[in-house]
């Protein structure tokens, strides 16, 4: 049997939820990643070590575990999050580890001499980070940031385990009712479309900020 328009509507809603959750998850991840990356680069042990531990934990643990801990474990310590909130926080915490490593690498790629030139002119550390290091690093990290965002889109499929009706959840629900794989195929196409759209935005941003020459 084929999918009805109501079924397609459900899938479209699932797609919307996937896109919405990933968008906020990514923004939260980026917001956390900037201070994390700066901490990772600090020479002081008590600043860089906690950041390093955070990154290692987020890299080592599967997202699904983090979601279980937040959604089912959270209430035990008084942290009651709605499913979408837990989903966004989970994606954000998870993505922040990966984004922080990307930003750290981007900041490391700024030539030492560019920073020395600033310091010779009396520009202090913080102003140098804001006006010289971050703007330069931002350009080099655009492609990997969008790549990681695409990974988050696909990782968001596990949000279904905390009852969020995102695209994968919607598709599997329909599949159970219709005894058909069609919903999965449609879902795969919708994921592809979303990922492709993000990749195109990434390319456009990359082109916009290119400083030529290379």
């Amino acid at each position, binding site marked *: 049997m084929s999918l009805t328009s109501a079924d397609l509507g459900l899938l479209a809603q699932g797609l919307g939820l996937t896109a919405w959750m990933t968008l906020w998850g990514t923004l939260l991840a980026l917001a956390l990643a900037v201070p994390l990356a700066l901490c990772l680069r600090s020479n002081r042990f008590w600043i860089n070590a906690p950041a390093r531990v955070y990154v290692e934990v987020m890299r080592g643990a599967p997202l699904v575990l983090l979601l279980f801990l937040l959604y089912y474990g959270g209430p035990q310590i008084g942290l009651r999050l709605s499913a979408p909130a837990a989903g966004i926080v989970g994606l954000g915490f998870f993505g922040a580890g990966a984004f922080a490593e990307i930003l750290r690498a981007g900041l490391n790629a700024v030539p030492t001499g*560019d920073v*020395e*030139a600033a*310091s*010779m002119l*009396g520009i202090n550390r913080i102003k140098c980070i804001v006006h010289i290091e971050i703007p*330069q690093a931002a350009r080099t990290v655009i492609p990997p940031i969008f790549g990681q965002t695409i990974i988050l889109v696909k990782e968001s499929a596990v949000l279904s385990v905390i009852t969020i009706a995102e695209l994968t959840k919607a598709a599997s629900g329909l599949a159970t009712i219709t005894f058909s794989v069609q919903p999965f195929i449609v879902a795969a196409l919708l994921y592809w479309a979303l990922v492709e759209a993000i990749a195109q935005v990434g390319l456009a941003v990359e082109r916009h900020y290119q*400083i*030529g*020459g290379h």
Partner: protein
Amino acid sequence: MPNIEHAISARKVTKAYGTKTVLRDVDLTVEEGEVVCIIGPSGSGKSTLLRALAFLAPHNGGDIHIFGREIGWNGGAERKVKQTEKELAEARAPLGMVFQHFHLWPHMKAIDNVALALKLVHGKSALEAETIAFDALKKVGLDEHAYKHPHQLSGGQKQRVAIARALAVSPKAILFDEPTSALDPELVGEVLNVMRALADDGMTMVIVTHEMGFAAQAANRVVFMDHGAIVEDGPPADIFGNPKSERLRQFLETSRDRAI
């Protein structure tokens, strides 16, 4: 604490990376208005010495004063009392620096490279900063290229922007770390001409260079370094015309051979 104010005075400056000593008890004094060229084979420590003068390569022994004020450490390197970021910035304030690889900030136009410190450090308004920056670029002959990004400029033009950037904040002395070594041969002249004009204006300059012709013409003093130590220090006529040490004689011979 030296009581006569030299532009730059380095006393017994030593620097080691682990067990490798790159500067051995270097004494160097530069007076205001002097142009001093530092020459020597690669690995002789000349760039390290220049970077030590600005505390970009922190020394582990001795002390360095810039216009009477100690830089990097308080009370000599041996006491290991490092200056705060603010103290270091104040000690560095009289110094400008020009690097071998320019180190212009690639995301900013030439004029913004020159204007940035005026805005961030010297409290100038955007308009004031731009006016001063434009004048500095004019001084190095690049007013027409003020609104280009570094990647649109040739190596020689980039280095002139870097000189303008150093000049714009009115330093009392400028350190040059092999300013023409990364340039195509046909672009060397335009940079040296700018430097010669600065020297004629009375700017205090310390220049690490492989350009023997320039050193012979433009310098008041030439310092020859080898193995982390100053071997000879004198007027260019003596250094090039009447080298006392065998090592300098050999060095001049090989660089002359290379020139032919």
